[in-house]
């Protein structure tokens, strides 16, 4: 599904990533770890196609319609409600039976009661849950998740654990985390950035 060879990324003078190579099989889960500033987010953005590598070769076996991307930032409009945000992206992704899918996700992630409130009134954790709903809204074959557990409380993290366990094997996952033990049971390959 993903084949990366000698990826390098420079912003200005210094390289953020240097000589990064990895493969991820279809249905596999790659967990990327590393200290702050090691280039995890940059690597996720490269895999998602938002940033081009300065050097190296990257092949991703899906087009962007089949890619779900969870960023450090929630990528939702603050002035829209949860339903309005998901409806907009559902329309852009041509999600079939959009309203039912949105309702099911909001219920599953505990946002049903606040579905008609603006995102600007949400806590960080609620916004992260909505970001997860946006990422999972369409049927993606590849999920690129940058620190998906950040800002989630225990209940939210447990919810995400269940969600990821359901997806393991059916979707290809690339995720970064500071807590690799949490995702150890479904990790198929690891990449440690220095």
């Amino acid at each position, binding site marked *: 599904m993903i084949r990366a060879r000698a990826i390098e990324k420079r912003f200005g003078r210094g390289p953020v990533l240097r000589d990064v190579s990895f493969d991820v099989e279809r249905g596999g889960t790659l967990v990327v770890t590393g200290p702050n500033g090691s280039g995890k987010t940059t690597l996720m953005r490269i895999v998602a196609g938002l940033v081009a590598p300065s050097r190296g070769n990257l092949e991703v076996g899906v087009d962007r319609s089949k890619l779900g991307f969870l960023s450090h930032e929630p990528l939702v409009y*603050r002035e829209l409600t949860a339903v309005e945000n998901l409806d907009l992206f559902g329309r*852009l992704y041509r999600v079939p039976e959009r309203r039912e899918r949105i309702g099911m996700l909001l219920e599953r992630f505990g946002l049903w009661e606040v579905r008609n409130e603006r*995102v600007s009134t949400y806590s960080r954790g609620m916004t992260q849950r909505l970001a997860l709903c946006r990422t999972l809204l369409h049927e993606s074959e590849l999920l690129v998740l940058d620190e998906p557990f950040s800002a989630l409380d225990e209940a939210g993290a447990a919810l995400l654990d269940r969600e990821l366990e359901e997806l393991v094997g059916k979707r290809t996952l690339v995720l970064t985390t500071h807590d690799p033990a949490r995702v150890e049971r479904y990790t198929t390959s690891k990449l440690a950035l220095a």
Partner: protein
Amino acid sequence: MSYVSDVTALASKDLKVELRARDTLPAMLLFVLSTLVVFRFALPSDTQDDAAYGLLWVAIVFTALLGLSRAWVPEQEHGVLDALVLAPCDRSAIWLGKTLATLLFLLAAQVVALPAFALFFAPLDATAIAGVLLADIGICVVGSLLAAMAAASRARELLLPLLVLPLSIPLVIGGVGAAVSADGERFLLFLALYDAVFAVLSWASFEYVVTE
């Protein structure tokens, strides 16, 4: 049809965001009105109409700049532009949706500005109003693209006027010409041509502005 539906979804989202945040339109309305009021008292009472039309264009261009400087702010907050770029829609739909929304804000500002101008300075005939409308389209077409470019920069407040103002000069020439010239239709034709050329260029190049 799906392209039209994407553009509609994106433009109506911008209108919804503005109706709630009220960040852009009230500022544009206040700016254009206060500019016209200041000009009214700053100019001698025997100022010729031709000079007044020039001032109208100063007000229009800077009001448009104000709107354009806010155009991509909702996308910058929470990094939403990344999500739009990743969506499988044609990326030019993002530009067209933003252009339509910005144009609506500018038109709304002019619903107030043009009668105020006619009250303070000189009447506007149909050719002059058509010139304003065509120039609005041109400013928004070019401005939405340039605002997206500037939004990626740290010095966006400085960069946007530097990019937009030189490209607005033909629009000002056409707009003033349509208002004061005896042959105003020629200037309208010039404005329509400008709009068409820059609409095609902006539509085709937006993808390269938002992707690396």
